[in-house]
């Protein structure tokens, strides 16, 4: 039996090749010349992301399953790459000064970031459970290290350890689920699984357990209740730039993988998993919103808020229709931008070694620095989902998709939790504007740099533009799913 060399569709994996190649070059430069100016590494990484974006743009009309059926090139995958590349680029912008300030500016940061991004884009495009698992592990391993990047900081170490231990545990669940799926259907390829799952000979109970375990694995990565325990500690301990990257990137990648696996492979079983995810979605929104009220640390508060947002995106999955997917894509993009903006604002909030983490320190900051306070207020309004910001549009689309799927109770629950959540966002806004600024002497100012101003500006502009004129982005998200998933 002669060996037939497999066909490699180079153009289809070009974005990932660019990211990995850029990471290796950066790593090599850092290894050969450890004293290299970090500005150069950051620039190289940005250029790499630009190259990957260009390759992604090049694929805009391609719809195919490539690499022996393991990788999908479709609208959702491309939209996912778009979100993730934007996230990575903004993360680099907010990292650069922050890392120097905390004296943890090691050259390996940039290769890790690029490799994590490549894992995320692969997860968003994966058409095979094996590849999904490898992609999740790639991004998780990189993030475990990045969370613990501040080696002198106990909080950072604690967060990394908790994230790592629970993450490894959830990976085991995911892997077991994949193994059971393979046992039931004889394949790890999503389209084959969906065909097999519809056949009567496949044992339903086996599929239930498999689906449940895979759901646990994904729910952990998106930090849905009750698998959210790691996220407040990891978010709080991680260097703030990494927290932003996790909140925006991991969530987007894991959700797109979640959607693809459940809608493509397990689409035939949706009447079984939708009720369960319904409960998970409501619990996630409720727990995230309620616990956020009790927080006194800004990063921790944003962590709980990100749990609540995972609940909103889950609405799109429970709706299980095309509107749900396009609304979730839209939401993931605007959420990534606004949460990165919020964390950028946290970084800007102080020029010294540590940011203003305690809520009390934010009192009256808007009166002294109106532009900065305005930006933070904008992001908080967007996170709360109030008009005229993009957060409102995103929530509106998700709710509309759920109503179309006759999930009215879910929309009611989501609306109630939104109102609860609005409380703690507005409380911070009130603090920023209505309290008297502390006396001038000795209190640290704020520390913006050109890169931070750029990222704040982009995030603020996007939050307003997609809140007031969202139609072009909505169309883009709808086009992404207009022909369904490939495969």
């Amino acid at each position: 039996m002669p060996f037939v060399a497999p066909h490699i569709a180079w153009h289809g994996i070009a974005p990932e090749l660019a990211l990995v190649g850029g990471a290796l070059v950066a790593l090599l430069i850092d290894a050969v010349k450890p004293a290299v100016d970090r500005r150069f590494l950051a620039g190289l990484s940005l250029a790499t992301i630009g190259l990957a974006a260009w390759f992604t743009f090049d694929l805009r009309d391609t719809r195919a399953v490539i690499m022996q059926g393991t990788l999908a090139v479709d609208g959702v995958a491309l939209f996912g790459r778009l979100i993730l590349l934007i996230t990575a680029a903004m993360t680099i912008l907010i990292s650069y000064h922050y890392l120097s300030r905390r004296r943890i500016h090691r050259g390996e940061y940039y290769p890790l970031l690029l490799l994590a991004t490549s894992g995320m884009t692969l997860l968003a495009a994966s058409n095979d459970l094996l590849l999904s698992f490898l992609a999740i592990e790639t991004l998780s391993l990189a993030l475990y290290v990045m969370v613990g990047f501040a080696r002198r900081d106990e909080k950072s170490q604690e967060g990394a350890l908790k994230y790592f231990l629970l993450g490894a545990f959830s990976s085991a669940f995911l892997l077991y689920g994949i193994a059971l799926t393979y046992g039931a259907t004889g394949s790890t390829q999503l389209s084959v699984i969906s065909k097999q799952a519809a056949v009567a000979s496949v044992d339903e109970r086996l599929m239930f357990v498999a689906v449940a375990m895979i759901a646990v694995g994904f729910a952990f990565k998106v930090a849905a209740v009750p698998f959210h325990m790691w996220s407040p500690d990891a978010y709080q301990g991680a260097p703030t730039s990494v927290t932003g990257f996790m909140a925006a990137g991991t969530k987007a990648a894991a959700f797109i993988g979640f959607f693809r696996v459940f809608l493509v492979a397990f689409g035939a079983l949706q009447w079984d998993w939708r009720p369960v995810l319904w409960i998970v979605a409501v619990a996630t929104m409720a727990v995230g919103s309620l616990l956020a009220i009790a927080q006194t640390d800004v990063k921790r508060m944003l962590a709980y808020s990100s749990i609540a947002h995972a609940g909103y995106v889950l609405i799109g999955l429970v709706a299980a229709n095309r509107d749900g997917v396009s609304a979730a894509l839209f939401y993931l993009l605007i959420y990534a931008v606004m949460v990165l903006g919020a964390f950028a604002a946290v970084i800007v909030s102080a020029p010294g070694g540590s940011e203003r983490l305690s809520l009390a320190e934010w009192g009256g900051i808007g009166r002294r620095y109106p532009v900065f306070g305005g930006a933070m207020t904008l992001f908080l309004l967007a996170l709360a989902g109030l008009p005229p910001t993009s957060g409102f549009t995103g929530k509106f689309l998700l709710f509309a998709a759920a109503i179309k799927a006759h999930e009215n109770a879910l929309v009611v629950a989501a609306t109630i939790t939104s109102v609860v959540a609005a409380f703690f966002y507005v409380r911070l806004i009130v603090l920023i504007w209505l309290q008297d600024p502390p006396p001038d002497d000795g209190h640290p100012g704020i520390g913006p740099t050109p890169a931070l101003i750029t990222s704040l500006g982009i995030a603020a502009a996007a939050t307003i533009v997609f809140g007031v004129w969202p139609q072009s982005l909505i169309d883009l998200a709808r086009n992404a799913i207009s022909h369904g998933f490939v495969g």
Partner: protein
Amino acid sequence: MSETIVFLIAGPIALGSALFIIMSKNAVHSALWLILNLMALAVLFVDLDAQFLGVVQFIIYAGAIMVLFLFVIMLLGVTREELLGEAIPIQRVVSGILGVALAGTLVWILLNAYDESAFGSLAGANSAGNVQGLGRLLFSKYIFPFEVTSILLIVAAIGAMILARGRTEEESASEVERHSGEDVRL
């Protein structure tokens, strides 16, 4: 026939050693039971005509990973029992009940759901030799996941390097001085 005999020997060893892993009070003993467990699994792999997987299981898990495991346990001295205590009193009971329930469900389902119709025959997969068949699959059908594994390993290597390498605070300190000039005020 011989397959069944081997299974009847290795299977209980695997199960029993797995139980002892969690029941041993001493971390080194747990690690040793884990090694025995992995060896029993390797034997089961060989028993199922997957010689390559079996031997690789031996080399990588029993031979390399567990040695490092023991190494770390020995160096850190985590054999003290207070480190292995429980924080919440009923934790052990609850987790035991839930664990047994999960295991029971899985056993019940797997016993009932076994169906090999979705798979090709073992003889067919091994027709050109076990190693050859595996290599062929890895380099044709699964080439992309296989290559992605290399990204995963690079990430792991970088991570290990970051966690293990000495401090470079001084270097970063000079970094901060060099760039402090670019602070601007809004």
